Every structure is written in C-alpha cells, then in structure tokens.
C-alpha cells in the first residue's frame, strides 16, 4: 500500500465534555489544524474551540424558503389565474391573500428540505466508510466517550502528538490509518 492513498488520524478519548473542549482549544492554539470532535450529544463550545467558521446552513435555509415562496406564488398564479381561471365568490382571479397559506407552507417545506439535505451535504453524510471506524474503542463516541481526532501524516512518527494529547488529559490515544475517501 502506498502512503498517498492512506489517511491517518490520532484519536484521543476524554472523560468529560469540558476536558475535550479544553484540549481542543489548546491543540488548536498549538497550531494543529483539521481536527474534529465527536460526542454523543451536541457539545457546548465545541465549534468555538475548533475555530470553525459560521455555519452555512442558515443561508441554504433562506435560499430554500425564497425558492418555496416563488414556486408557490408562480404555481398558484399560473393555475388559478391563467391555466384554469375559476371565479370563487366573486373575488379577483389574482387574489394574493388567498395564496398566502400555500406560500407559507411551501416556504417552510423548502426551507426544511434545504436544512436537512444541506446539512447532510455539508457534513458529507451519509458516510458508509471512514478510517476512524477502524478503531473499536471509538464506538464509545456514540454512547459515552468524548473524542478528538488530529490529522497525522501517514507513515510519520505520531508519538509526539500522542504524548501531547495525553498530557492534556486524554484517557486513551490511538492511531488509525485507512484508505482515503
């Protein structure tokens, strides 16, 4: 196997969310990049400690909402005013107030789609395989463990990084290597 098709990470488990956030911040201040945190539930201060940029999901949601709004207005105008004009109670054929409920619903629906699929796409999910799955201990990330991953050049000695993580309070550290995505 050649090193170029392989990716490596140092994984470190911490006992508490606070220890994880603290260690993440300190590792970032030491200059490590491309790290990620894993916890069974949303982590307070996790994204700040990782130094992540603001999420792009709100803009996708806004885009979805505006798309839904335009779709609904165009659809109802086309159907009720041009394609099949129907006189309902003597109201004008282009009755904007009557269209607001549908417009609202479609805006919400498209915004929800945008959030759901946008989040999946931005997180590159679903991900059937990832090298960190090679580590059995890492399974605790979905029940009770708080993990930090630090990218590591494949083939290089990871002892220094592992020692640093241990000194920051990691209860166990491990090196995983697997095929690039």
């Amino acid at each position, binding site marked *: 196997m050649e090193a170029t098709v392989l990716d490596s990470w140092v994984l470190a488990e911490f006992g508490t969310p606070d220890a994880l956030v603290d260690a993440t911040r300190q590792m970032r201040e030491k200059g490590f990049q491309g790290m990620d945190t894993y916890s069974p539930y*949303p982590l*307070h*201060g996790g994204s*700040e400690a990782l130094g992540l940029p*603001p999420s792009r999901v*709100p803009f996708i949601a*806004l885009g979805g909402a505006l798309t839904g709004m335009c779709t609904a207005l165009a659809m109802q105008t086309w159907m009720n005013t041009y394609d099949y004009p129907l006189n309902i*109670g*003597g*109201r004008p054929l282009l009755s904007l*107030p*009557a269209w*607001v*409920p549908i417009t609202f619903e479609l805006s919400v629906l498209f915004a929800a789609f945008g959030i759901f699929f946008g989040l999946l796409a931005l997180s590159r999910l679903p991900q059937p395989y990832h090298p960190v799955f090679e580590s059995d201990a890492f399974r605790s990330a979905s029940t009770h463990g708080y993990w930090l991953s630090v990218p590591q050049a494949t083939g290089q000695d990871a002892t220094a990084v592992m020692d640093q993580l241990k000194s920051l309070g990691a209860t166990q550290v491990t090196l995983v290597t697997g095929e690039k995505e």
Partner: protein
Amino acid sequence: MSPPVTSVRVADIERYTGTPKLMVPAFGLGVLGLLATLAGYFATDAKGAAAHSYLLAFSYWAGISVAFLLMLCIFHTAKAKWPIVLRRTMETAASAVPIFILLLLPLLLMVKDLYSWWPGSPLAAHIQGIEAEHLSHKQHGYLNPTFFYVRQAIYFGVWVFVSWRMRSWSLKQDETGELDLTVKQRRFAPGSLPFLALTITFASFDWLMSLTPMWQSTIYGVYYFSGSFLAAFCVLTIVTTNATGANLYGSVVKLDHFHNLGKLMLAFVAFWAYTAFSQFLLVWIANIPEEAPWYGLRIFGAWRPMSIALFFLHFVLPFFILLSRNLKLQPRKLSVVAVYILAIHAVDLYWLIWPALTGTDGPSFHWTLVTAFLGVGGIAVGFALLQARNRFTLPVKDPYIAESLRYVQP
C-alpha cells in the same frame, strides 16, 4: 459561548439607589403631557382626536405592562432558568399596572367621544335603522356602562392581585432567600395565566374593538396581545442594554441573554404577522357584510397605503433584520431595532384606533397623539421606577440565579 461582560459578582451587587435621576423627569414629562392632553380635550373642538389619542396611549402602555405580567408568569410556568437575571425588570414593569387604574379615569371622562354605544354619545347619530336595533337588542347586555365598569374592575383586580403576589414573593426572597418562595411563584403563575389571558382579551374588546361596536373578531385579543408582548420584549432589551453601572444587572448579563431576547423578538414579530393575517384572511375570504366593512375601510381608499406599509414595516423589515445572528449578539444594535419596533407598534395601534375617528378621510395627525403618548408613558415609566427604588435590580437570592448567569446557548 461568551465570557461575562465584566467580572462583577452577584454578591457584590447592592440595592440600586439611582432611580430618582430618571423617575423625576419621567413624572414631570408625564404630568405635562397629561395636562396638555386634557387641555386639548376640554379647551378645543377636537374632542374626538384628543380622546382617541388618549386611548391609543393608554392601550399602548397598559398593554406593555400587562404583557410583562404574562411574560413573567409564562417563564415561571416553564420553570425557565435563563431569564431569572432579567426577572426583576419584568416584575417591576408588571407592577406598574395599578397606576393604570388612575390613568383610566381620564379615559372615562372622554368615553362619550370614543364609543358610539355609550348612552348619550354624539357618535351614535351615525348608527341608524337595523344597526341601531341590533345594537340595542343584541349587544346591549354587554355594551352598557354598568357592565363596562364592572369589567374594568375585574381586569384591574386580576392584574393588580397577580402582579402584587408575584413581586412581593420575589422581593421577600431578596431578604430571606427562602426556597419555598420559588415554589409559591411557580405554583401561582400557571394558575393565573388563564385569568390573565381572558382579561387582556376582553380588555382589548372593551377598549379597542368596541370602537366599532358592530364589528367582532374573536382573535382581536390575541392581536392586541401579540403586539404588546413583542413590545414588552423590546422594552426588556432596551432596559437590559442600558442597565450598565454600579449595582445594575446589565453588568452581569451575558451575550447569550441578548441573543435569546433577539430570538424572542424575531419569534413575536412572526407571531404578530401570523395573528394579523389570520384575522384578515378569515374576514376577507368570508366577505360577510357584518365583518367586511372594518377591513374595507382600512384596505381600500385613504387607509390603503398605511395598511400595506404596516405589513412591510411591522413584519417584513424587522423579520429580515432580526434573522441576522450577528445583530442579535450586539446589544446596542439590537436595542435600535427594539426602539424601531416600539415605534411601529404605536403605528399599529393607530391603525386600529384612528379609522374609527376619521373614517374614509384617512390618516391624520393631531398634536394630542404626542402629548398623550408622553403623558401616559411618563407616568407609567415613573411609577415603575418608583417600584424599583432601593430594590435589587435582579433577584439576588433566587436559587437559580447562578445558573441563569452561567447560561450558554444550546
């Protein structure tokens, strides 16, 4: 998410003694405003304009005070811990309710120039034929002076009682720190909510909806509540932003609290639009002769531009501004938006009230609009500050105050 703004500790906070600096000018402005408005009513021909201006000011400020009471009880009902640092402001604003009993008296003086159903009202001349019969037979049981007085007594009885209980327990806890007092507040608040909801609903029917006695809308109370509740969040934001200084709670509030206030403002901008549109859509789509004229007056003719403007300025503009996360994390800028919403809320009440005065002539301005607004506002704010004199500006011995100050965004 963010560190506390300063390193002030709750234990170091003492009773606040700086209120007279604001209270005296507020009372001064209030008295001048009221005198000018009364002069406008008794000494000029514009009796209707002065009466409607006073009603606008009264329902604006009383609505905010009662909305604060509802807000306080809702947070207690939800056992919410994050707003505890803000709670004394809610209690103080809600305890301004008794002054509105006094402020109701000028309204009762002007009542004949407001409500056409009031016996001897000069406005009754417009109501003739079948409408007059309907009014005298079907509605007389509700819209008559005796029952009107009785209802006002019930509303203010409920509001004064609830605000007094909530606040006195909270103030007692400042002294004793008894945990039992928290239990009492949390038990009393949910029980009082149905009464508060019913009283503010019927108060809006009495004060505002009966300006057009032939027109009824069951959601009207919610409409009035939604605007007032939104305005109360705006007042809370402005007060919290400016409460920085010795012994003021603004110095221990976190950015997370402002973020939440901003989010609640956004939510209630949307809630106002939802309520306003619900009411409009049902009337518009049914198009029944009894209901349609109220909206017909407002959406056609001289009032049309204002109705359209209200949709954009009360909903679309603040909604999109408040969507920004960055804005909600900047208390000063959020306060500017809050001031804007408070202004547009006054326009909203004007839109409810003024067409009853001018009809198809459209919007007009009268100087008593300003004097009444400042008069009622000055007295109400001054009275609230009087309640805050020599008190702690936050519930210092609440068992959850530490949790509230440690609050982080979920």
